């Protein structure tokens, strides 16, 4: 049902009805910002990336093939824009370095209240231990709820590769939490 509406909205935007553009992107607006924010770790940069991605979607909508899913196409544009942005600002190096030197917190350092109040740091520290590809796969699947097939279409890789990266990402996360504070979460202190 939604797909039909989406096709209709794409057609309307192409015919010059610009108000339909906002409706077309309405279901993805929060997901886009969240994803860009998780990749960059900065809200303002995430907004900038989203704006760039939206502009690309608007400009290249005529090249969008209707037999494909608009959702995966738009996420692909967003992911490419995010990585272009990081590359341009030469942040890639810093991000990779920060991943290599992922912060390892001692149990004693992590107070019970951290789990309640500092959601942002908790998620970001979890993501910082992942490689860029693992992070992308993990976020698209667990945060955005895309299927393995859709993730593979967004990232332009095979489904096997998606599963491998996802498995590795979860193994890293569990190792990280086991080392630090899985017990606390299990005890219901989250």
């Amino acid at each position, binding site marked *: 049902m939604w797909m039909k509406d989406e096709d209709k909205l794409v057609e309307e935007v192409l015919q010059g009805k*610009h108000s339909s*553009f*906002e409706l077309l*992107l309405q279901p993805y*607006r*929060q997901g886009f*910002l*969240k994803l860009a*924010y998780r990749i960059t770790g900065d*809200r303002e940069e*995430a*907004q900038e990336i*989203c*704006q760039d991605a*939206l*502009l690309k979607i*608007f*400009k290249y909508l005529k090249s969008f093939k209707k037999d494909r899913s608009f959702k995966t196409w738009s996420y692909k544009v967003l992911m490419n824009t995010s990585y272009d942005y990081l590359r341009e600002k030469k942040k890639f190096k810093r991000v990779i370095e920060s991943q290599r030197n992922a912060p390892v917190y001692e149990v004693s350092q992590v107070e019970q209240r951290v789990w309640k109040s500092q*959601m*942002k740091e*908790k*998620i970001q520290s*979890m993501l910082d231990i992942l490689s860029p590809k693992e992070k992308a796969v993990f*976020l698209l*699947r*667990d*945060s955005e709820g895309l299927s*393995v097939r859709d993730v593979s279409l967004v990232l332009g890789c095979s489904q096997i590769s998606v*599963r491998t990266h*996802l*498995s590795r*990402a*979860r*193994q890293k*996360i*569990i190792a990280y*939490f*086991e080392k630090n504070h*899985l017990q606390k*979460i*299990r005890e219901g202190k*989250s």
Partner: protein
Amino acid sequence: MKCQKIKRLLPLLAGSELPESQISSVRAHLEGCLQCQREYEKYTFLVGQTRKWLAEDKVGWEEQEWRETVQSVVNQGSRKRTSLVPWPFPRAWAYTLMAGVMLLLTILIVRPSFVKQIGLTPRYVNVVGADKQEVVSMTMVSKETGLKIVWFFNKNFNLEENE
């Protein structure tokens, strides 16, 4: 299947990403392996917890902010580009023309002999007997005074001494 291989598949089973064909064999292994069962429980918990955290994460657009962003995107995107040189034909023609000119210039620079091959050699070279000519003269006449200066060159284009 061995535990080592199963352990790689457990994160996917916990997140429902494992292909149908592998689910039954992994489940069969879990029934007989306590260690892998514990591992699976951990992954199930982790997947549920991380998904919950990510869903609770309140990063989002303010309504006003979103509207302004979309409006600015639409304004930027629908702005037509003005060209510096008016070109009434399709843009592809201009690109083709430019490519042709670039190709010709490249050929002229890389292989000047090509000019001869395609018959673009300057006409004076084809004058009958020009290669046998021993002396060439050049005459300059002043418009104001009518003074004539005649220079003679040998075939190597060296100025001939007038004896």
